């Protein structure tokens, strides 16, 4: 089985495309449409990498980083998807322990490269 990616994004359209490309790239993907579900998923399972949108219902990407690093005490790499013009969010994400970020509109190819780099570090 390929490396496991947790994809947290409430945008169905983007998620479908990323899901497709990640699977083509040999990853196994779990997609969560909201932050609450992500948290519950992480209670039972820790993927090899987390890719999360910053704006999500119930629990933002920022809260998610805090949860993974400080409550679950996990060092699993986290890549944040942010909207353009949200530099402050990206800075906060890095402070809390995000490993990398990518700005919307997301290029799937670029995201795959970034994921591979984080996983192989």
């Amino acid at each position: 089985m390929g490396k496991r990616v947790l994809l947290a994004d409430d945008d169905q359209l983007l998620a479908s495309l990323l899901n497709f490309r990640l699977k083509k790239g040999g990853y196994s993907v779990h997609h969560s449409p909201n932050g609450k579900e992500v948290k519950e998923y992480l209670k039972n399972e820790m993927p090899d990498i987390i890719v999360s949108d910053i704006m999500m219902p119930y629990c933002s990407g920022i809260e998610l980083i805090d949860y993974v690093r400080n409550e679950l005490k996990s060092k699993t790499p986290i890549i944040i998807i942010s909207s353009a013009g949200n530099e402050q969010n990206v800075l906060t994400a890095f402070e809390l322990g995000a490993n990398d970020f990518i700005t919307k509109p997301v290029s799937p190819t670029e995201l795959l490269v970034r994921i591979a780099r984080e996983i192989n570090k």
Partner: protein
Amino acid sequence: MAISKSKDLLGQLSQLERTVGEFSFEELNAHEAKELKESFNSFRSSLEKHIYAPKTQQIVPVKLKTDASNKNEVSEKQFIANVSHEIRTPLNSIIGFANLLKEEKLTKAQHKKVQAIQFASNTLLKLINEVLEYSKISSGNTNFESVDFNLHGLLKDVMFLCETLIVDRNVELLIDIDENVPKIVKGDPSKLSQVLLNLLGNAVKFVERGFIKLEVFTKQKNNNEFLIEFSVADTGIGIPPEKIETIFNGYTQAEDDTAKKYGGTGLGLTITKEIIEKLNGEIEIDSTVDKGTTVRFRLPYTMGKPTATPVRKIQKSTFKKDVKLLEGTEILVFEDNKMNQHLIVEQLTQWGCTVHADIDLDKGLYLLSSRKIDLILMDLKMPGQNGFEVSKAIRSHKNSRVSNVPIIAFSADFTEQDSRDCKEIGINDFLLKPYTLDDLLSTILKCKEHKVEQIDFSSILQKPMIEPKETTVVDLNHLMKDCFGEIDMLNELVKLFKLNAIEFIGNVKIHLKTQNLKEIALSAHKLKAGFAMIKANGMRNLIVELESSCKKDDFEKVKELYDVFLNDYPMLEDNLDKDLKLMNKK
């Protein structure tokens, strides 16, 4: 009692968790998969029984209740809420494991079995979410508003949303608001739309042909207080008499296989009833099997102050005067793109016209000979029977009342051949897409007043071909590359994109009425990525501007941009379809 039942429930859950844990999925055969599915179903119904059985027996007059028993009930509901929440955790791991399992190399048969697990557990998850919402409402955790709002506007918006749901079905959607219903009332608009959408959504689910009708009238009036009755009638499958009494009690659907056929968890009506009762209203249901169902509910409102409604943008005075001239015009629209059809009907109806759309040649001819039709709008490039053929048939009809009705054609391009054909067939005027509302209005008026016999079609050709409007441009090449050239994936994404856009249109429409700019900003934000994907940069910029206008609280600007969106989006969708068709051919 609540504690023991809930314990029972938790016991069942851990049993389920153990069972799933012990499963060796490779050894599952069809029979076992079926059993698994059934056990999920029986688990679901037992869950429902445990949660609702005590409630149905508690029909005690409210006044007789002591404070203690009230408290008891509240804590029981709180407890249910907590338990439901707990249930979701193991359930999510069932779903998660099933998802993971699907990723592994499975035989076709095994894949099917995993799908059965996914189906059952997703259904269960949906039920639990509804249970949570239900207990939230009944334990008083929901806030009710009391604001002035435009009741007529809300009703129309709700119907608009429903229309997008039944666009491809043979169901007619009717609305009848009695004139004694006040325009502006004071109450909770979002709860009313939730109730209406629940009921209409139910009707949409259960009606295969016929109609769905929303009727509204004032049942009682006392000075400033109104009791308004709403009824939602449908020609659906109906409910047998013995089930009607229990239909509002928790998880019930008329037949045990209703869920299988129509989906849903049956909590919608319970939630609806709770909301209505919390608003001091009442609800009743009337149904005949195979004939249909009518749900009536009555809610009290007080007269609202009209100043609280959004200020309408003042349009150019000539435009306004012109619109007046259109009132009562009866128009046939031949346009097969449902989205375009929907929008043009909306616009014309708003201008006071009677519109017949969604028609084919036969129905059109029938209407032309039986009614006094003033005008025909004709899309020239319909994929089936095209506009030229339909126009030709109309012009050559033996009844002169039919054959003489003015025809305005429209299409996104116009060639020399088109020009000759229009002239020969006897089409009166032409609109090049994308046209503005002004264009549409003045062309219709010109034709209606018979000011033109036939325009000089070559003049359209001589006009330098207008650069395609920036907001309607799309390019799928990029996305196709991202899909590695897999056409199925591209089709899927475009389908999703269109659904998102329709959802956006409905959402913004509703939130504009209540001036909820926060929600509109969120909707716009969600749509941005989609437009970026299909390289619709012009439209994406518009959405970005719309989002930032929401944040600046510039209501007028938001409304203006939304109108541009409504005007241009159908063209963009046309271009998208064209592009996709090309890709599919390649």
